[in-house]
């Protein structure tokens, strides 16, 4: 679980990138609405993951899986 709430881009993407170095099949990332959701999603997809975004009211839980 990566908690990137309240952090401005590109920090949430860098945190996701660092976490993904462990090479697991499933990650969860918490981000704010807007640009972080799009940027983390775009990065995860570019790495071959699929992303499900769950709206938590002003925040999103991104379920990232292979």
């Amino acid at each position: 679980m990566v908690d990137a709430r309240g952090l401005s881009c590109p920090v949430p993407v860098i945190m996701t990138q660092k976490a993904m170095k462990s090479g697991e099949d499933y990650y969860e990332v918490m981000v704010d609405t807007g640009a972080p959701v799009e940027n983390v999603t775009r990065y995860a997809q570019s790495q071959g993951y699929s992303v499900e975004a769950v709206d938590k009211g002003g925040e999103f839980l991104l379920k990232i899986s292979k």
Partner: protein
Amino acid sequence: MTEKKNDKLFIIIAGLVIGVIAAALAFAGNPKNMGFCIACFLRDTAGGLGLHKAPPVQYIRPEIIGIVIGAFAAANVKKEFGSKGGSAPMTRFALGFFVMVGCLMFLGCPFRMILRLAGGDLNAVFGLVGFVIGIFCGIFFLKNGYSLKRTYTLSQGEGCWMSMIEVVLLALLLVKPAFIAFSEEGPGSMHAAIALSLGAGLVVGVLAQRTRLCMVGGTRDLVLFKETRLLWGFLAILVAAFITNIVLGGFKLGMAEQPVAHTDGLWNALGMLLVGFACVLLGGCPLRQLVMSGEGNADSAVTVLGLIVGAACCHNFGLASSPEGPTPAGKIAVIIGIVVVLCIGIVNTYVKEKAADTATDAA
């Protein structure tokens, strides 16, 4: 998330529209190669309000008002408006201040740098080189854990401040009371009709909010993530403005006698190095900061205030360049700015690395 495939196309189209508008504004009355310049226009606005007394650069620029209001409207329609803040406000203020010092050394923000390139101003090539070096400096710290702590949700009113200020500025522009100063000659006196400038600003504000357009983000994301989306926006503006300039006869290739520009290559580069470096540490260029201030981000609003105060100081203390070249005081200010930004990078990367809630990700 099925629409992601269209992301790139959208930002290219948006960049093309913005490029045409920006180049065309220069033919509608704005200074040459200055259809948009966030730094110059905030500086002009500061002058219009009497925060500095440089007669040639005083005007409340409707483009700025339009960008913020456009971003505010787009964010509200898309339910992305949210009052947030509390992430290192004074550090952001200082970064904003020195971004302006760098911009006024070069005579333009990153947006105007593109427009100068598109107009054939080869001095901007030096600026671009410095800008990219500055971005790499910022990326070094990002890769090593740089972060300016978290923002928190604030009361709804907090995020509306910058938009409300812009409404007041619009009223001052239209009513023009005696305490407001507008240039009678020089760049500040050159402007398109208010409705045209405001409309252009609104369009750019909406498009920039929807696309997250950012002039430093293109190079930064390419290096960090091999992500090219924002860079396409940057290039689309360049191409569209270039073609518009060719069609309308505004293209003049060379270094000498370019509009609102000087030919000191070293200081053009160092000015933009400071801008690129500080903007990466801020998380976005001056345009992006304006847009985020409209989206309710109080930290970006503080950054914009830093830009405005920076502009006022640049003209009050003789730091801003002129077409004759940079000033000695301006050179000192840029060096100080680079040192300060370097210190901000070091402090927020290494000194507080173990702080509880920064870039440490719970496993």
